[in-house]
């Protein structure tokens, strides 16, 4: 069967470097390293995991101390994050801004391509329960990507979002594409009303009974923050090897007690209630306050991963009800 334009592009990427893309096995969809073209899932379904581990490895070595010398380590192979949905691109956009002065992240990003994919905006809206925002018509202008592919009824439309993306498309022999200029995180129309609404509701919720109720069932397993594409909390620590000491950056979770340990072994977030509020406050207040951007992209992975069924969307609706009229 004749390859589509998008498949030809994917084949080109496979010849150029490591490709991570959604794959379906036994009915479940997850982002994995792709070896063959046929492994790629083009359905546009939300993968169980995100591309976070490609952008920000769960564990990376920052420097090594050997024989009294400190040597910085960089690893930046050519990597393609392929078929990222709009929500995962929003999460990548957030990480890009958080780590904008991080030399390790930026070195990796130089050789890492964000390639977005949509099966068509109306289809996406049905697919994702996007409680954090409305799909704006000019959504591509406010997210970072190198190449974006939109599936239309007949064919695939290509967009470039960076010079790097243009070069990649040219290298793949794709000349018919549209340039999209990044216009900043905040749309011209101003901050999204839902973002502001969620911010206000969480800000006012410190005394809400919701946190007590959630604390009764939450296991503090941290699965929500591990699957979350926008959670980037990490530890910096030393690892002693046979021939020296490696300084590593490793994911952590604010649900772990170690996270907020202070001098003298005191725990700052010493109750589940505090941990839960901290997590929501970070996503819906601190990040919007800092960047005027979403700290949660409403991918609902945390809902799927939670062993006790805590539902972030339902909780935000509850806070909205509690704060009505305040």
């Amino acid at each position, binding site marked *: 069967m004749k390859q589509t334009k998008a498949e030809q592009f994917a084949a080109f990427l496979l010849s150029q470097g490591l490709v991570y893309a959604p794959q379906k096995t036994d009915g479940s969809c997850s982002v994995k390293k792709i070896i063959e073209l046929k492994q790629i899932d083009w359905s546009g379904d939300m993968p169980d995991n995100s591309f976070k581990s490609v952008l920000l490895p769960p564990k990376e070595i*920052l420097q090594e*101390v050997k024989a009294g010398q400190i040597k910085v380590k960089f690893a930046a192979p050519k990597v393609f994050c392929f078929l990222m949905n709009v929500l995962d691109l929003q999460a990548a956009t957030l990480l890009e801004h958080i780590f904008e*002065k991080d*030399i390790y992240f930026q070195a990796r990003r130089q050789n890492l391509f964000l390639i977005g994919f949509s099966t068509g905006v109306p289809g996406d809206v049905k697919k994702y329960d996007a409680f954090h925002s409305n799909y704006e018509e000019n959504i591509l202008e406010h997210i970072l990507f190198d190449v974006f592919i939109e599936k239309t009824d007949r064919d695939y439309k290509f967009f470039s979002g960076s010079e790097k993306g243009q070069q990649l498309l040219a290298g793949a022999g794709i000349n018919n594409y549209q340039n999209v200029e990044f216009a900043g995180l905040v749309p011209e129309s101003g901050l999204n009303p839902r973002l502001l609404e969620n911010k206000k509701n969480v800000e006012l919720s410190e005394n809400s009974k919701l946190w007590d109720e959630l604390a009764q069932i939450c296991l503090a397993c941290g699965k929500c923050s591990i699957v979350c594409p926008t959670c980037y*909390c*990490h530890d*910096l620590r030393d690892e002693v090897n046979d021939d*020296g000491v490696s300084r590593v950056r490793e994911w952590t979770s604010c649900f772990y007690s170690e996270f907020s340990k202070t001098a003298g072994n005191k725990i700052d977030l010493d109750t589940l209630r505090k941990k839960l509020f901290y997590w929501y406050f970070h996503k819906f207040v601190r990040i919007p306050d800092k960047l005027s951007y979403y700290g949660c992209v409403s991918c609902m992975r945390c809902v799927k991963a939670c062993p006790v069924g805590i539902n972030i969307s339902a909780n935000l609706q509850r806070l909205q009800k509690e704060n009505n009229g305040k």
Partner: protein
Amino acid sequence: MENNLKQKFAKIVSVVKETVSVSTLILGLPEQDNFAFRAGQFVMIGIPGFGECPLGISSNPADAQKQISVTVRQAGELTEKLNQLKKGDCVTFRGPFGNGFPEVASNLILIAGGCGIAPLMAVILENQKRKDIKIQIFIGCKDAATLIYKEKYKQLQKTCDLSVALEQKSLLKFGFISGSVINAIAKKKLVADAKVFICGPEAMYSSVAKILLEKGIAPKDIYMSLEKRMHCGVGVCEHCAIGTKYICKDGPVFDYEFLKNIDKYKI
């Protein structure tokens, strides 16, 4: 782009044993680094294999190109190791990080609890010779055995209004009063038109704020230096978030106008 996470080595020029569990390390810095800091900023000091911790710089900012001092109180494995180091040993360092105390254009009231005097010492050393401002200092400590920088206070009394409050009676004689630092502040007439810089255990902050507000000092003129476990030092790892801010990047010094809304520091 600067690599804020890369550690460098600094050689220990000398060590002052302050108390049984507290030492001051004087660190020589490579001259080409042009190291500079503001009083109240901190550095991340470590030993490979044992991690690193934030320590406020206690020396005069004017001497920063040659050397800096940090005072280490034994509180865990790393600080225990740091306390065992000797002249000639090396530590890792990164920084300086944080905002530091604001520029001083008015009188100063400095309030320290225990080892909290360390970053305030940088403020004192930087400003003590100025004729245009008055400096009033309150230091609270458990007893004379745990008081640090003892050798500096006789000299300091000549240029500053110094009160050292010891909660347990001591044999030392000069200028010490018994009782808590709160009582010392309550009894004293505070210098007018002053900014107040505070550093000490978090437990003392709301009571100090209360007495200062009672004495008519505005929340915007009260500055508190906070401490928390920090990893990156640049506001990314999320360990030291406080409200909408980060202690390492937006602090460690915050005015009480901001802190009065944070549960822990509310009166």
